C-alpha cells in the first residue's frame, strides 16, 4: 500500500501512520524546534497521507521561510509538496497563471519575467512557495495600493481533512477561501492556485531614494507621497538615538518601461537570472551579529544612501530581494537563532510606534535595518495580518539579554493601540495577544471546525497560540 510519494517513490502507509523517524525542524529564525515526520508529497497521493495521518495531525510546509513554528508539527506529519514552475499555465489574455502550490516565487519568476509578468505581491525573499504566500497572506511593498497576496488569488484547489478536493475562490466558497488565505495551513492543503499577475515591460525597476533624518520625517514623507508610487518601503536604523531616532532611507518605485531603460539593458529588457553570490557555512559557532557590528553596518548603509535621487534603474532582485544574494544568512545569528518582531499599529497610533522605536534604540539590541511599511486596506480574511496602519519588522538575536521581557512589554503597547502581530513571523507571543489582535479569530475557528472537525491540520504555532486546541 502506498500513501505519499514524490516522483514515483512510494512511502508505505504504515510508515506514514507512525513509524517515520522524526527529523528536527525549525523556522527561518532557528528557534523553538521540534521533531516531525517529514515526507515529500505530490497532489496525486496527498489524500491518502491525510486520511491515514497520525494522531498528531498533518501540516504542509513550503520553504520554511516563516520565522517561528508556523511550518512545523511536533510529533506529526509534515508534507512538502513537489512542483515545477515549468508546468505553470500562463493565460496571456487574462494575465493569470495557474501554478502548483509547492512552486517557489523564485522558480515562477524565472518562467514568467521573460514572458512579461511579475507576481502581484512579493515578500523580501523570493524563496517562498505559492502555498506559503497564500497561507500567510503575505504583503509586499505595494500593500498601500494593491493589498496582500490573497487579493490576487482567483482560485485555489485544495485538499480537505476528509480527503476530498475542492475548488474555491472569493466568489466560490468564500468562507473557506478567506479562512485559507492567512489561515497558516490549518484549513487544508493548497495544491494549486490561479493568480492575477502584473504585466511588466522590463525586468528592471525605476527607483527614487530619499533619506529621512528622523521618525517624524519618514512618517510624513510616506503619508504625503506613497500614493504616487506602486512600491514603497523604508529601512529604519533602530540603533540610532536622540535626534537621529528613526532615521531612515525611503525607496519607492515601479517597474521600469522599455522607454525608461538605457544602454545595454535595452538589448534584453526582460533578461532575468538572479544568483546567490555566497552562502554562509552550516556551522557558525557564535553569533557574529552583535551591537558593534550592526551599529557599524547601519551607519555605513545610512551614509551611503543618497540624500535624494530619482529615476535610478535597479534589477528586480536588487530592488525586491537584496537579502537573497547571500544564501542561508540566518546562520549568521549562531546556534541560538534570532527573532523577527513584526507588528502593526493603526493610523493615528503613531505615538505607540514612536515609543516602540525609542525602546529598541534605548535597549541597544543589535537590530539590522528594520523595515517600515504603510499598509492600505485589509481584505476579508479573518486572520490576514495587514490593516490600515504602520508595520515595523526587525530582527534581533534571541540571546539578547532581557529581550523576552522587552517584547512582552512592547506587545502590550501594540495591543493597547489596537494593533497586532504577524503570525508568519511570530515565535514569542501568547494566545492572549493573538486573541486581542485578531478579534475575528472565533469566526475563523468556526470555519475551520466546519471543514476540519476532527483537527487533522495542526501545527506547533497553532497549538502554541491557541488557534487550534
Amino acid at each position: 500500500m502506498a500513501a505519499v510519494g514524490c516522483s514515483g517513490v512510494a512511502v508505505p502507509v504504515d510508515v506514514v501512520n507512525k513509524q517515520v523517524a522524526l527529523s528536527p525542524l525549525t523556522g527561518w529564525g532557528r528557534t523553538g524546534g521540534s521533531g516531525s515526520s517529514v515526507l515529500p508529497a505530490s497532489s496525486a497521493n496527498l489524500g491518502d497521507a491525510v486520511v491515514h495521518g497520525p494522531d498528531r495531525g498533518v501540516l504542509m510546509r513550503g520553504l520554511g521561510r516563516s520565522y517561528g513554528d508556523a511550518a512545523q508539527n511536533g510529533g506529526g506529519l509534515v508534507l512538502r509538496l513537489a512542483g515545477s514552475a515549468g508546468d505553470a499555465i500562463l493565460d496571456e489574455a487574462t494575465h493569470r497563471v495557474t501554478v502548483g502550490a509547492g512552486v517557489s516565487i523564485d522558480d515562477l519568476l524565472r518562467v514568467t519575467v521573460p514572458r512579461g509578468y511579475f507576481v502581484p505581491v512579493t515578500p523580501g525573499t523570493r524563496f517562498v512557495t505559492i502555498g506559503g504566500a497564500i497561507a500567510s497572506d503575505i504583503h509586499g511593498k505595494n500593500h498601500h495600493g494593491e493589498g496582500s497576496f490573497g487579493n490576487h488569488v482567483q482560485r485555489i484547489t485544495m485538499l480537505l481533512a476528509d480527503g476530498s478536493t475542492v475548488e474555491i475562490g472569493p466568489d466560490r466558497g468564500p468562507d473557506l477561501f478567506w479562512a485559507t488565505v492567512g489561515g497558516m495551513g490549518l484549513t487544508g492543503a493548497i495544491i494549486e492556485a490561479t493568480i492575477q499577475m502584473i504585466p511588466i515591460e522590463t525586468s528592471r525597476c525605476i527607483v527614487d531614494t530619499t533619506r529621512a533624518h528622523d521618525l517624524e520625517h519618514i512618517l510624513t514623507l510616506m503619508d504625503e507621497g506613497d500614493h504616487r508610487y506602486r512600491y514603497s518601503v523604508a529601512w529604519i536604523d533602530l540603533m540610532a538615538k536622540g535626534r537621529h531616532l528613526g532615521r531612515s532611507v525611503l525607496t519607492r518605485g515601479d517597474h521600469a518601461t522599455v522607454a525608461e531603460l538605457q544602454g545595454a539593458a535595452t538589448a534584453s529588457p526582460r533578461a532575468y537570472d538572479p544568483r546567490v553570490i555566497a552562502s554562509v557555512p552550516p556551522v557558525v559557532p557564535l553569533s557574529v551579529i552583535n551591537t558593534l557590528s550592526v551599529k557599524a553596518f547601519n551607519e555605513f548603509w545610512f551614509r551611503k544612501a543618497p540624500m535624494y535621487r530619482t529615476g535610478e534603474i535597479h534589477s528586480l532582485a536588487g530592488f525586491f530581494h537584496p537579502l537573497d544574494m547571500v544564501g542561508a544568512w540566518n546562520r549568521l545569528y549562531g546556534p541560538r537563532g534570532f527573532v523577527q518582531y513584526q507588528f502593526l499599529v493603526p493610523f493615528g497610533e503613531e505615538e505607540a510606534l514612536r515609543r516602540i522605536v525609542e525602546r529598541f534604540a534605548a535597549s541597544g539590541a543589535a537590530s539590522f535595518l528594520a523595515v517600515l511599511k504603510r499598509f492600505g486596506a485589509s481584505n476579508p480574511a479573518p486572520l490576514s495580518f495587514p490593516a490600515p496602519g504602520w508595520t515595523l519588522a526587525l530582527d534581533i538575536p534571541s540571546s539578547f539579554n532581557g529581550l523576552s521581557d522587552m517584547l512582552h512589554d512592547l506587545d502590550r503597547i501594540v495591543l493597547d493601540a489596537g494593533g497586532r502581530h504577524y503570525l508568519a513571523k511570530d515565535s514569542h507571543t501568547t494566545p492572549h495577544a493573538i486573541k486581542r489582535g485578531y478579534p475575528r479569530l472565533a469566526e475563523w475557528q468556526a470555519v475551520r471546525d466546519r471543514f476540519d472537525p476532527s483537527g487533522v491540520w495542526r501545527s506547533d504555532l497553532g497549538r502554541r497560540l491557541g488557534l487550534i486546541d
Partner: protein
Amino acid sequence: MQNAFGEPQTILLLGGTSDIGRAIVGKLVSPTCRNVVLACRTPSAAEPAIAALRRDGMTVTSIAFDASAPLTHAEFVADVVAQVGDIDVVIVAFGVLGDQATFDHDPVAASEAVTINYVGAVSVGLAVAEQFRKQGHGQLVVLSSVAGERVRKSNFVYGSSKAGLDGFAQGLGDSLEGTGAKVLVVRPGFVHSAMTAGLAAAPLSTTPDAVAEATVKALRSGRRTVWVPGALRYMFIVLRHLPGAVFRRLPLG
C-alpha cells in the same frame, strides 16, 4: 510549545515540594507560561508552593505522584497530558538523601531510597520520554548530584543511586537525539535545602536559587549537563582520577 526564548507554556515538577525544583519552576515561569503541575506524594503539601506561584493567566495545580510506584507512572503521565496537553519541561526533583549509618544496618531502607532515587526516575523518565517523542519536543531536567560522580563512603547508597540516575539520564538524552526532545543533567554540590537541613555544609555549598539560575541558563543554551557551582566540574575531574587509596583517605565527610 516553548517560544523562541525557551520559555515553556507547560511545566511538570516531579517532587512538587522540592526546594530546588520549586526554585527552577520560579525562574522558568514567564508571561508565556499557561500551566504548572506540581506532582507530590501528598498533593495538599503543595498548597504553599501553589500560592507562591499563582499569577494571572496561569493555572497551578498539584497531582498525586509516588516515585516508588513505577506501575503507576505511565498512567500518571497520561493523566497530566489529558489535563494540560503537551508538556514542555519536566523536572525530576524528587529524591531522598537518607542516612548512611542507618542504611548500613537496614538494607530494606537502603533499597527503598534507591527505588525512589533511581528506579522511580527510570520509570517515570521513560514514560515522559515516550510522551516527548509523541509530541516531538520537550525538555527533561534531571537533578543528579556530584555525589554520583565519584561515590564516597559517607553516603554511598545515595551516591550510587545518583550515579545510576546520571548514567540513565545521559543515555536517555542520547537516545532522544533528533526527536526534538532533550535531557539536561544537573549536578549540584551541597545545596542548602530541606534535604540537607541540619547537616554541616560542604565546601562550595550553594542555594536552590543558584541551582535554578544555572539550570535555566543551561536549558536556554541547549546544554546537556551543568554543574553548580561550575567550579565543581574541575574539582571532580581531579577527584574522579584519584587512586582509590588516596581518595579513601580524603576528609570528604
